[in-house]
């Protein structure tokens, strides 16, 4: 998307002015970067002994890769379960029966309003009181990710279905499909396709949120990776920069994938 319609194509004077401004902006940004560099340098954050451990194979094998596995494991389980939860509750919220619609709406609104951190805490500490079982940190994290993101996905799917032209539903009924067939064969597939970008952004949110697992000691990138490395080499900042970079790369890749899927489906 280009926004060139917001301004005139610059003339010779405009071009010159823009060049000066561009140089000024670049200078300000460079100056900012320089200040950060110097201040961090004073605190010895660039010291080699803080950065070289991040290049070591054993550091990756012991901290980063298991952490990555934990993050991705929780994220994949979360995406699958939240997707299921979302589909079920979106359908339930659009039900013709009041006794299904209202409780489903309550559940969705409740879990959309409660912070994920609280859900994870609760799953971890409350499960024993409720069921007599202790749940693992993994289960607590996936529980939280599923309920919260599932509720958001339910809303996304519902919005997708509502955005479809009325004719789709009417045509399906005219062909003699049952309610459940209309939803399953006609409305949901189109809604999911239309909402793909929103769904992928939500999955990115979910992946990032799995980092909250550190609160119950789940072995993910921040707990195992960052804290594990920092405990050995006391290099919190360098390790955090590396872990953040890993998250950014994964999420950008997901974003790219979503665009490609969208394009492949002719949108």
């Amino acid at each position, binding site marked *: 998307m280009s926004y060139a319609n917001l301004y005139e194509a610059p003339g010779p004077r405009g071009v010159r002015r823009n060049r000066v401004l561009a140089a000024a902006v670049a200078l300000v940004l460079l100056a900012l970067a320089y200040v950060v560099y110097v201040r961090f340098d004073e605190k010895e954050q660039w010291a080699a002994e803080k950065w070289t451990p991040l290049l070591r194979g054993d550091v990756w*094998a012991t901290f980063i890769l298991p952490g990555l596995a934990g993050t991705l494991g929780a994220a994949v389980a979360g995406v699958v379960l939240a997707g299921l939860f979302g589909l079920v509750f979106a359908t339930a919220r659009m039900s013709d029966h009041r006794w299904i619609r209202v409780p489903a709406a309550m559940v969705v609104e409740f879990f959309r309003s409660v912070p994920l951190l609280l859900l994870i805490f609760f799953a971890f500490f*409350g499960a024993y009181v*409720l069921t007599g079982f202790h*749940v693992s940190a993994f*289960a607590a994290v996936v*529980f939280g990710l*599923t309920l919260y993101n599932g509720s958001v996905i339910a809303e996304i799917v519902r919005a997708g279905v509502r955005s479809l032209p009325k004719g789709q539903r009417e045509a399906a009924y005219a062909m003699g499909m049952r309610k459940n067939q209309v939803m399953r064969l006609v409305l949901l597939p189109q809604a999911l396709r239309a909402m793909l970008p929103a769904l992928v952004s939500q999955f990115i949110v979910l992946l990032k949120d799995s980092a909250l697992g550190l609160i119950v000691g789940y072995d993910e990138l921040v707990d195992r990776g960052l804290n594990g490395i920092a405990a*050995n080499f006391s290099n919190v900042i360098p390790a955090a920069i590396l872990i953040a970079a890993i998250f950014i790369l994964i999420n950008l890749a997901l974003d790219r994938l979503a665009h490609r899927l969208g394009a492949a489906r002719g949108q």
Partner: protein
Amino acid sequence: MKSRYALFAVLVLATACGGGQETYASIVDKAKNDKKLVIGVKADQPGLGLRTPDGAFAGFDIEVARYVAKELGVEPANITFKETVSANREAFLEQGQVDMVVATYSITDARKQKVSFAGPYFVAGQDLLVRADESALTGPEALNGKKLCSVAGSTPAQKVKSEYAKEVQLQEERTYSACVDRVLGGQLDALTTDNVILAGYAAQHAGKLKVVGKPFSTEKYGIGLRKDDTAGRKAVNDALQKMFSDGSWTKALQASVGASGFALPQAPQLERY
């Protein structure tokens, strides 16, 4: 409301991991028959229990665990160390996910309701960690107007504020490493928690940090075992007694936190019950 409880229960159950393994009445039987043990330890505390880059664990707790395991008939190679955090130590023992816990685990009456304790194998005390060139901070009373770091959700810092220095400013961090970073950086003045934990950090930053050395509380570290494992408790206590008397205990402590200049104490008196 009922239905929501039920929904929670179902969801929790659905996501809960079932773990079925052969159970023994006592850790002694398991050690004898399986020749294997799973031991819960801390993974992020230098000097006590730290996961090192080679994937192994190191520290004083680890040495104690290895010694005890050996006395029970389990070779070091057959020990699986499993990371525990403060929140899940009891749960791990009750569920049998670990056979024992050696993880700066203070013996308290409340915890005795849920698990049984051998030991203590170390008597720690709350103390302060300061920069090595700091001479004014000689104890908790000197903290008025200073900035003190502690780990979120811990009572020790509150205790300093209420009992020793009303004017102290408290900073809560999520990890000790973050506190250490800020004390080293000069932004905060001291970190408080158990002295032996502090000694671990002082050893990691030898010459830059020191433990003040005026403990103002008593924390008895015990080895957590499943509740009612009386035979296990006796066997572990016997192992500890041997470790104290043959010099291995002092050697392990010296190797783990000696570099901090921390005055090594005498081995504690076991409390058999």
